[in-house]
């Protein structure tokens, strides 16, 4: 009996010998140590077992001599026990460990965005050309429950609670310094400023270098309260209480001590090298009225100048939870679907806990309307928003704006190798190793993020124009602009959408 089961590598590095010039750039680029130069043969070798398929070497190879292919080594075919499932059993039998994975749920579970289709105007009303006519994507997040009050001259008084102004209905979702690199944060902060939107510190505190982006910064207060102090709250446009995250609803966080470098420790305000453990719940919130207590204490601490966001994972009774939050004094609810990404989560939690954002969003929006409290909060939807079409569909279902995380990381070079938890990200994103972090140039990275969001904005405008809608605010909750295909009556009912071809 073997002590550790040999698991054959999932990928193979294929090198075109005719093209390889043995420049050894691949060797230098791979922090996983896949590539090596064999002095005896004068040729490059590859250790497939170390390869995570991040494509760094493929992209960097000056002669395009490399490709990564799926290994054709197979177990006996079995539709029930596929190779991944079998390997997971081996890994746990080897180690006794809880399986740990990164990024979002990769399983082929239903994606309702792809079953929703968008309307366009024909004859009875006109489409609008967004290149030549105004097409407004500006919106405000926060409470809209202002009372009509007038001054002595009859002018309306501004009784609106503080809110956020966005030039595009997209924000960068929470990713902590520690889980991602300093340069990745720099890219997000700079892009947010240029785009007129916001990035989110995650729960790892805020590096002092980024205080200058405070107008575009959302700071997070999670159960570990890392880096939460007066200056941190002061340097924010909004404060987000993280109750949960789509990739791992109901569990806490755990940044291993090896990622607690000097700089990260300073930002989190905990000693270098110790694990940063976030408790599963906030231990001052065991009930909905306790949430109100935290919302209000943060408002007291910031003298009611900043909106408070409450972020929750999409779970079975999302609508009731949102109703409770809407009555807690919070200004914005962020709902994170179960396909959302993460730096590291137990595999079983990531793949099995929570519900899709589409269904949760539709139910939350409808419930808040049924209770007449939709104006108490704005809604941000996240948890796998992959394209501008997903954004348009989310807003038509009822979101005010969307959080993007994975898409932003892809713009920075991420290839979804799902190995963030190793801390060896070759693209300089999910790592704290200085030589790897240096690979992510904030000038280039922020430009790529701006490009991405600008392109999405143009596409959103095109789709809005097609519908004859020239303000994103007239798209919000406009479910008649959506139709379903390949969905059951029950799914349509939950989504509040009619079947394609149905008039209404």
């Amino acid at each position: 009996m073997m002590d550790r089961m040999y698991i054959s590598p999932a990928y193979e590095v294929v090198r075109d010998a005719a093209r390889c010039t043995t420049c050894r750039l691949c060797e230098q680029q791979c922090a996983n140590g896949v590539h090596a130069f064999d002095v005896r043969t004068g040729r490059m070798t590859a250790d497939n077992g170390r390869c995570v398929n991040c494509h760094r070497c493929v992209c960097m190879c000056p002669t395009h001599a490399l490709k990564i292919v799926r290994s054709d080594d197979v177990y006996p075919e079995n539709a029930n026990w596929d190779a991944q499932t079998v390997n997971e059993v081996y890994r746990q039998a080897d180690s006794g460990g809880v399986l740990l994975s990164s990024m979002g749920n990769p399983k082929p579970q239903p994606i309702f965005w792809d079953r929703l289709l968008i309307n366009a105007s024909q004859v009875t009303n006109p489409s609008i050309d967004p290149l030549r006519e105004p097409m407004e994507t500006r919106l405000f997040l926060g409470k809209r429950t202002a009372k009509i009050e007038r001054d002595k001259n009859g002018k309306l008084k501004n009784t609106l609670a503080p809110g956020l102004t966005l030039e595009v209905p997209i924000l960068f979702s929470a990713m902590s310094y520690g889980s991602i690199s300093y340069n990745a944060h720099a890219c997000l902060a700079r892009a947010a400023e240029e785009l007129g939107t916001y990035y989110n510190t995650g729960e790892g505190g805020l590096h002092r270098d980024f205080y200058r982006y405070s107008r575009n910064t959302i700071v997070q207060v999670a159960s570990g309260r890392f880096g939460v102090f007066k200056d941190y709250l002061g340097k924010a446009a909004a404060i987000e209480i993280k109750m949960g995250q789509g990739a791992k609803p109901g569990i806490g966080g755990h940044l291993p001590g090896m990622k607690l470098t000097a700089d990260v420790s300073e930002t989190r305000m905990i000693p270098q090298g110790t694990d940063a453990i976030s408790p599963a719940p906030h231990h001052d919130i065991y009930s909905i009225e306790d949430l109100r207590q935290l919302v209000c204490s943060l408002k007291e601490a910031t003298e009611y100048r900043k909106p408070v966001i409450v972020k929750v994972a999409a779970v079975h009774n999302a609508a009731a939870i949102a109703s409770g939050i809407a009555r807690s004094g919070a200004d914005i609810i962020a709902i994170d679907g179960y396909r959302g990404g993460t730096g590291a989560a137990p595999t079983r939690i990531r793949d099995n806990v929570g519900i899709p954002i589409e269904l949760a969003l539709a139910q939350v929006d409808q419930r808040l309307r049924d209770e007449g409290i939709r104006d108490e909060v704005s809604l941000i939807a996240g948890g796998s928003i992959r394209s501008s079409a997903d954004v348009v569909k989310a807003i038509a279902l009822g979101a005010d704006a969307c959080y993007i995380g994975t898409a932003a990381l892809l713009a920075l070079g991420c290839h979804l190798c799902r190995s963030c938890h190793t801390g060896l990200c070759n693209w300089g994103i999910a790592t704290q190793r200085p030589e790897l972090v240096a690979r992510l140039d904030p000038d280039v990275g922020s430009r790529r993020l701006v490009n991405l969001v600008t392109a999405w904005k143009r596409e959103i405008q095109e789709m809005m124009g097609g519908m004859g809608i020239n303000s994103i605010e007239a798209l919000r909750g406009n479910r008649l602009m959506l139709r379903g295909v390949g969905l059951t009556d029950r799914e349509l009912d939950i989504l509040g959408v009619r079947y394609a071809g149905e008039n209404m």
Partner: protein
Amino acid sequence: MRTIDAEGMDYAQLNAQVRSCEEEEICITRCIGQRYIGTGLSGRRIVVDGTPGNALGAYLDGATIRVNGNVQEATGDTMNAGVIAVAGSAGDATGYAMRGGRIFVEGNVGYRCGIHIKAYRENRPAIVIGGRAGSFLGEYQAGGTIIVLGLHTDGRPIVGNFCGTGMHGGEIFLRCEHVPPRLPAQVRAERIASLPAEAASLVQEWCAAFGRDARELLSSAYIRLTPDSNNPYRQMYIAN
């Protein structure tokens, strides 16, 4: 000194008055349930008569608060610096996630006192409890000092169950003879004949705050709890 009569005031009103008060010393009288008193404050000395509401001194940043009476839940939540002295008992989650400053409680504390307190550089949070503590004392403790003096007379154990669960930094001192039962595996317990200097000075401060005699407390034996690793969960996961 400015006196604010809290009778009939809601918390937002009361706290706005405290924030805008020019004077350094403030006395709040007839306090009954107003929350968030002293939130994020620095540079003030506040005395509270009555029963303040939850989250007293949340995010406290250097101010001093003395309460003549009991306090409720989440006192000193995410506190950064300053002193909270309670001439009475404190409720659950006292000192949650505090990073600096000191909380002195003359009587007992409820469940989950000192949960997730953490030290950082010169910031070393400390909680000194005169009576006994409820269960989950120092859960997830990542730094700082918790001292329980056991001056209670109800005959119950000095701490409840699951003391120090998830502890990965800092230290807990319990003035008792025996190691509490069912400590988590990663917590090391040792009997010490007297308190180390830093802890001793905390006890002296506690005594000064409540007019108690320090001699007996300093000459007692204590059980000291520390974690054996600051990476307690490293072995738990396998990359997939």
